[in-house]
């Protein structure tokens, strides 16, 4: 290895925000290619949480390639020009042949209405399998994963959401350079080997979620609620698209979104920011800037009509009641989170954000405890990046012959009460205290902090974490009444009623 003296002049901005009387200090670095590096030094064990977030998720897909953001996340573990292969050129030649034969199969099978010529398909399938066999000796299985594990990587994973995709590892403090090398390599040099068998893996993943009771109904509810915006489909995507998406789709997707100017790397733990910044410049800085990425075009238009859905299946009977609300950062978002908290707060069962189905919320006290209509009842406010949803969920007391429709009436009664009277000063203060305490707790876990700050940076900037706490502090009861009246109306709602199928 060459060892030489490097003198670097880096512009490291150090900023801190104050919320709940506490400072969150973040060192920020913007590379010349537009990539952002956030660093939060934290005392403790000699380890560093290293996360990379891309501003891409299922909302950047379109019909025909739904699920591709998630399939792509899988493919990011299947090697690069450097990793996962013994002889790149030899492998690439085979890989191109595999793509050619699969392209013929897809055209025959999916473009022809009769499903194509069976004998011809069988022959091509045989060719494909032979090519795959001959490629196997050239492939080094899961080399990136093995390298991370061998070097003490934990929290090793990746996840795809509607809006963002993250790649995670926590390493000993002396090994962060490994992450810089591997992550910059797969951003710039990803090479999608074993694409077709990995699609099979993802289809198995989809089947797993289909077998989770009630999930097929929930997928339909979500699709009905979001008619126009790309939140319409689930992250996993439709089965047809998983089957038919092509390698070319994958390459185009990668080249569009996996560019440094669409990416944030965040480091939380025990390290020297100046040294880490220099390292980031070296590894991530070598990747050329990509084209600017256009934000999504289609938001959710007004609904103009009440929506109702009924379903049956192998899950508990239940009610969902959903309303469209504005995205995070909107002036009404804070008041809506106070409403969710008054309706569904805590009871000490952990901290899953504002709202919930806990013991001190109005829904629990009225529907579960006093009237004994429900087994559980919850409210949550999910603003999301572009379009939001306020959701009520409740499970009726079947033993007392309560119907979901009875719960619907009871929930509307609670909603009407809030429209008229708002909530109590105690409830508002409770929501404020809880939002502040949640902010402080978020600073406690290095991994949680990396996730929150990294994702926030992609949308409204990491400082928005504190802005949101401050916004909750400013909420008044008039705000509560106003937002309840504005959003909790029939023609902004979807009511979904699910009944357990009898005779299972």
């Amino acid at each position, binding site marked *: 290895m060459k060892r030489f003296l490097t003198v670097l002049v880096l512009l490291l901005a150090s900023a801190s925000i104050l919320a709940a009387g506490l400072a969150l200090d973040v060192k920020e670095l913007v590379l010349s290619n537009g990539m952002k590096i956030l660093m939060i030094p934290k005392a403790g*064990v000699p380890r560093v949480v290293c996360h990379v977030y891309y501003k891409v998720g299922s909302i950047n897909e379109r019909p025909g390639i739904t699920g591709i953001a998630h399939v792509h996340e899988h493919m990011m573990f299947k090697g690069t020009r450097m990793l996962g292969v013994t002889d790149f050129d030899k492998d690439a030649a085979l890989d191109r042949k595999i793509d050619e034969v699969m392209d013929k199969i897809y055209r025959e099978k999916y473009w022809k209405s009769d499903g194509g010529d069976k004998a011809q398909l069988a022959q091509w399938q045989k060719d494909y399998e032979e090519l795959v066999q001959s490629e196997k000796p050239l492939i080094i299985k899961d080399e990136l994963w093995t390298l991370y594990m061998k*070097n003490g990587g934990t929290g090793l994973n990746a996840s795809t959401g509607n809006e963002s995709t993250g790649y995670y590892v926590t390493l000993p403090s002396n090994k962060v350079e490994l992450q810089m*090398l591997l992550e910059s390599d797969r951003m710039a040099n990803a090479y999608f080997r074993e694409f077709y068998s990995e699609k099979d893996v993802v289809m198995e993943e989809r089947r797993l979620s289909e077998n989770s009771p009630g999930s097929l109904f929930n997928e339909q509810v979500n699709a009905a609620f979001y008619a126009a915006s790309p939140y319409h489909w689930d992250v996993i995507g439709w089965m047809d698209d998983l089957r038919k998406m092509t390698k070319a789709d994958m390459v185009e997707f990668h080249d569009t979104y996996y560019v440094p100017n669409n990416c944030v790397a965040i480091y939380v733990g025990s390290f020297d920011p100046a040294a880490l910044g220099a390292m980031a410049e070296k590894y991530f800085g070598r990747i050329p800037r990509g084209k600017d990425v256009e934000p999504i075009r289609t938001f959710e238009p007004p609904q103009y009509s009440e929506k109702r859905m009924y379903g049956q299946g192998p899950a*508990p009977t239940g009610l969902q009641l959903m309303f469209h609300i504005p995205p995070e950062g909107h002036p009404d978002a804070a008041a809506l989170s106070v409403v969710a908290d008054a309706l569904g707060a805590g009871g000490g069962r952990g901290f899953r954000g504002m709202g919930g189905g806990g013991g001190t919320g109005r829904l629990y006290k009225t529907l579960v405890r006093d009237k004994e209509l429900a087994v559980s009842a919850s409210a949550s406010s999910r603003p999301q990046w572009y379009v939001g949803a306020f959701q009520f969920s409740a499970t009726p007391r079947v033993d007392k012959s309560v119907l979901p429709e009875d719960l619907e009436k009871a929930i509307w009664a609670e909603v009407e009460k809030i429209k008229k009277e708002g909530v109590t000063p105690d409830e508002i203060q409770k929501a404020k205290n809880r939002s502040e*305490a949640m902010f402080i707790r978020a600073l406690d876990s290095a991994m949680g902090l990396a996730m929150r700050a990294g994702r926030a940076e992609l949308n409204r900037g990491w400082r928005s974490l504190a802005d949101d706490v*401050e916004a909750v502090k400013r909420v008044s009861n008039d705000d509560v009444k106003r937002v309840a009246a504005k959003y909790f109306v029939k023609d902004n709602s979807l009511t979904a009623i699910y009944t357990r199928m009898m005779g299972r």
Partner: protein
Amino acid sequence: MKKTLTLFAALSLLVVSFGLAQVEKPSDLKFSPLSYEPPNPQAFRMTFANGLRGYIQEERSLPLVNISAVVNFGKLTVARDKAGLESILSDTLIKGGTKTREGSAVEERIDFLGGSLDFRVGERTSILSLSVLSRDLDEGLALFFDVLMHPEFRENAVNLAKRRLTEQLRQANDAPGMVLAREYEKLLYGDHPLTWQATKKTYDAVLPGDLKAVHGRYFFPKNTILTASGDFSKADLKAKINKFAASWSNQSPAPQSWSKTFPAVEPGVYFIQKAINQGYISLGHLGLEDTDPDYYAVQVMNFILGGGSFTSRITTKVRSNEGLSYNQGSRFTYRWGFPGTFAGYVQTKSATVGYAISLILNEFDRIRKEPVSDAEMETAVNFYLESFSDAFQSPQATMATFANLEMTGKPMDYYKTYRQKIKAVTKAMVQEAARKYIHPDRAAVLIVGDFDPCNAGSDKFPGPLDKFGTVRRITLIDPLTGEPVKTR
């Protein structure tokens, strides 16, 4: 609260770094040495009035306090005709109120402070956990000890919990993964307190008096270990805790013991019918206790076999090579005082159930017959050594880890000696562990799925399933009615 938002001016930093040349491949990376020693439990151990013990760590960077009480009482102590008492206890220790406070008043106050108070009963231990901002420590502690020492189990809360839990029984056979996990344990442990299940009848049999009796018998200072971390001074906290513990009297319950003989399971296929598009599969037998000297070799062996996610053999064969599944591998579970279970597991579409099982059985066989490779050993051993400090990232989790060592009677130098024991594992020990703890010939293969397509198999690996031994059908019980469930 301050409302200012501070933004420091951009700083220009001059960075001089040595040896930071960008390398092109991982093998060129050179890492500076890093040494780490785990915290010593004795440095955190404290004793309080009436023999109450604790592991306490000051951690003053954030204005937070976490405190938990681990009590030596769990589900295993519950009588068969009151199975599920532990769930009602979990639900009502807080909600049932105390001698001087309504349950809802406790919850309201904790929530108002932005804190949390949570209680869970496990297999052999129960944990009450409080988290509050340090400014609210006194009030939080008062509520915590009131709930821990003086619960009242008011009838309305107990009845509500019973109705809620009974309603939940309707879901007992819904999720295929839950059915598989429960029935696998029933298969391996047989009829034993470890596997007793609540029914409507046993929930109905639990009365507030039963909960009070259990609390009176098992919740006392010498049967409890506290853990605390956060923004306090140890001396202050000790004085505060002593005030409560001083009036908490000890009991002397009869020592508990449970049978450690389990039925011999007939090898072969056990099938549970469910109209789904995949088979959910666990195959294996009982494992070992984590106090066994072979534990370290078994950990390394299982990492290579199917515990080390993508670096493991089962994942490579079943998922990466064949695309048969999303989730697969092998695992040894561990439980206090009993051997845990060993299982290979996979969920795959019905047609490839047989094929996936055969691939996993091949791997069981191979790790017994052939020594593992040097590269596999290196990855597994290095993973355990290099990730070791991860276990001590959170002070509260570290304190809980130490409390658990003491509660379960494990050596307190467990972590101090952990790495040298992992380092001592050799390839021969790995193979020996595989021969001793993996027995494909004795494996029970449990499948939850749709029988006909699973039994038919696929071209690549046609059925029937009795290739793997006699096929026995298991009929599920509806815990609500106690009757066998009709399948469709």
